[in-house]
């Protein structure tokens, strides 16, 4: 459904997207995972035809996408990071406007509006101005607008930013449903757990480049069978990280804001020794978390920094 090949974009001298390639099949949910500023939004802006690429190509449903292309856009449902609805209009009016903008005739548009209101759980608030909605309801409507023309590809740009846990769960559930219904979904996030829950395949982006791609298990296997241990310290985290890095069983130890993140095999066996070494480095331990291998560990392993940086 979507084929992205060697996509490039620079702003001035700064490279925002560098040689990015991936594809998404029908019914597949693909996650673009990366920290803020990794180039995710720039990439999807080019895929949605909002931004011209300096190089490479985007093909949606067999048709090339560009800033000047018009027809192919009806295949793409675009849900921006912002809550992009009109606050003075009701939920139904917003949906109807965007449905008509997509070229649907009045009757079909009205029918789609009704369906979408049901899908996003806003039927009982259909005639209320969206400015009276909670953040979560607005987010759901925001996604609904992206679905109004029955797109083949749905692009969701960090749709859960600033959403309460309950609404977030509802949004994630909706996205899961869409994938099951055969829609190709491109989902960008910097929340590892969202990517793990929703995505069939994941592309990891950092500093404009796609540094790894695969299913979650494929990506996790790249870091081996290693555990990730987070040791929170009161102070001297850099010294603690350096001391831990000297241990023979430690693969890497990184200092991230008073937390030392350690990659190693069989963390449980070596935990006592590591805590002792932190104490010897003059630091005081505040807490310890042990994680089995996950995407956070993958990112840390690939980039040497945490996903939330």
């Amino acid at each position, binding site marked *: 459904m979507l084929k992205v090949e060697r996509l490039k974009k620079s702003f001035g001298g700064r490279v925002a997207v560098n040689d990015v390639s991936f594809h998404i099949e029908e019914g597949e949910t693909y996650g673009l995972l990366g920290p803020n500023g990794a180039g995710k939004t720039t990439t999807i802006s080019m895929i949605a*035809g909002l*931004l011209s690429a300096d190089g490479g190509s985007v093909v949606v449903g067999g048709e090339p996408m560009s800033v000047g292309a018009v027809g192919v856009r009806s295949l793409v449902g675009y849900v*921006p990071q912002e*809550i992009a609805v009109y606050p003075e209009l009701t939920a139904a009016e917003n949906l109807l*406007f965007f449905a008509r903008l*997509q070229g649907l005739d009045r009757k079909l548009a009205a029918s789609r509006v009704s369906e979408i209101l049901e899908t996003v759980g806003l039927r009982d608030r259909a005639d209320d101005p969206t400015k009276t909605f909670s953040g979560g309801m607005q987010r759901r409507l925001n996604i609904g*607008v992206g679905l109004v023309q029955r797109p083949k590809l749905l692009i969701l740009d960090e749709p859960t930013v600033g959403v309460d846990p309950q609404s977030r769960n509802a949004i994630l559930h909706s996205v899961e449903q869409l994938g099951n219904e055969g829609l190709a979904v491109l989902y960008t996030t910097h929340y590892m757990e969202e990517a793990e829950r929703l995505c069939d395949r994941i592309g990891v982006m950092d500093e404009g480049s796609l540094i790894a791609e695969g299913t979650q298990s494929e990506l996790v296997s790249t870091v081996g069978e290693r555990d990730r241990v987070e040791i929170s310290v009161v102070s001297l985290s850099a010294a603690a990280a350096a001391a831990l890095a000297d241990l023979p069983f430690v693969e890497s130890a990184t200092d991230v804001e008073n937390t030392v993140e350690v990659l190693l095999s069989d963390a449980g066996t070596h935990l006592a020794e590591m805590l002792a070494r932190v104490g010897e480095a003059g630091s005081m331990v505040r807490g310890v978390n042990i994680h089995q291998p996950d995407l956070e560990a993958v990112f840390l392993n690939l980039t040497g920094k945490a996903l939330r940086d």
Partner: protein
Amino acid sequence: MRTILLIATKDLKNRLRDRSFFIMAILAPLVLAFVLSSVGGDAFSEGSFAPSYVVVDATGELGPGLVETLADAGLEDVSLVATPALGREAVDDGTADAAIIMDKAFNAGLTDTAQQLEIVVYANPDSPIARSVAESVAEAIASGISGSRLSLTAYVAAGNFLTSEVIAAASAATPLVTVDNLVAEGRILDGVTFLSVGMSIFFLFFSVQGGVIEILEERRDGTFARLLAAPVSRAVVMIGKLSSAALTGFFSVGVLVVATSLLLGADWGPVFGIVGLAFGAVASAMGVGALVATFSKNVEQAQQFSGIVGTVMGLLGGSFFPVAQGPTALRVLSKLTPHAWVMEGFSGSAGLGRASEALPAIGVLSLIGLAFGLVAYLRRSRLTGVL
């Protein structure tokens, strides 16, 4: 076309539900026009700023009658002096704004039908309305005298002698000056109409500019990206957005024309004049608004810039007081603002009751809109963003 209308009507609906639009576009100009006209509407009449005239009549035969006629025509401050020197002195020292001089030679010529008559208008260059009125008075006198002299020539040709009674009778037969002439040539708006037009154009600028700035707001809120992601061309999206700004301007003017006419008794003049000037005002406001927006980094800055530009142009352009009676520098500067041309257009259209009088102003306003709009178009990426 369908998509343009779709975007424009959506924007209009969105704006009409926004209370701040009603306050800015309808309520504020209406209330201000009402309040200012209530506390002293006559003070804002352009007529009240066309102050003093002096009639110089060296012999006293025509002068008293002319002063009376001018007073009847609505010119309140008209005095009579005996010599041209006194008339010029009155203008030079600011006592009068214009002098209509009929010297001894002129009076002698009244009885000598072969002699060329000359009426001199001596006016303060900073009082164009006073000069215009004085010139029209002089022309009216000349026209009246021409008619009288034809009668007198026929009278003399028949072998009769001219006496002062005969001359007076001939002059009375053809009125020298009519009320209509004076008011029309002065292109004067009454206080209520002046304030209604002034407040309307002043706030129209803000409401139309607000419509253009809405593009920046939509960029910030993400809806503009959503519009651009739809299967329509970018040009259609932009035309739709700008059309909505224009529609809000026309809506605002329409409501204000009806409201001030019904509630305050304002006389906006012929419909075609109103429509043409509303078109020109909206076009110029859109051009200026678009250019201002392209120089702004964000919505807040655009709102600040447009507030400053709108206020300065409104003050300079005579939305609050008739700049025509101000100093030369102010009058020249005011011509750089659309507001001044709207006021001038309505002075001609409503003042004279002829829509065609507004054509020059409509032309200039359209050109202002075109020129500013063209520069804004060249800088359009600053408005629509990199998306």
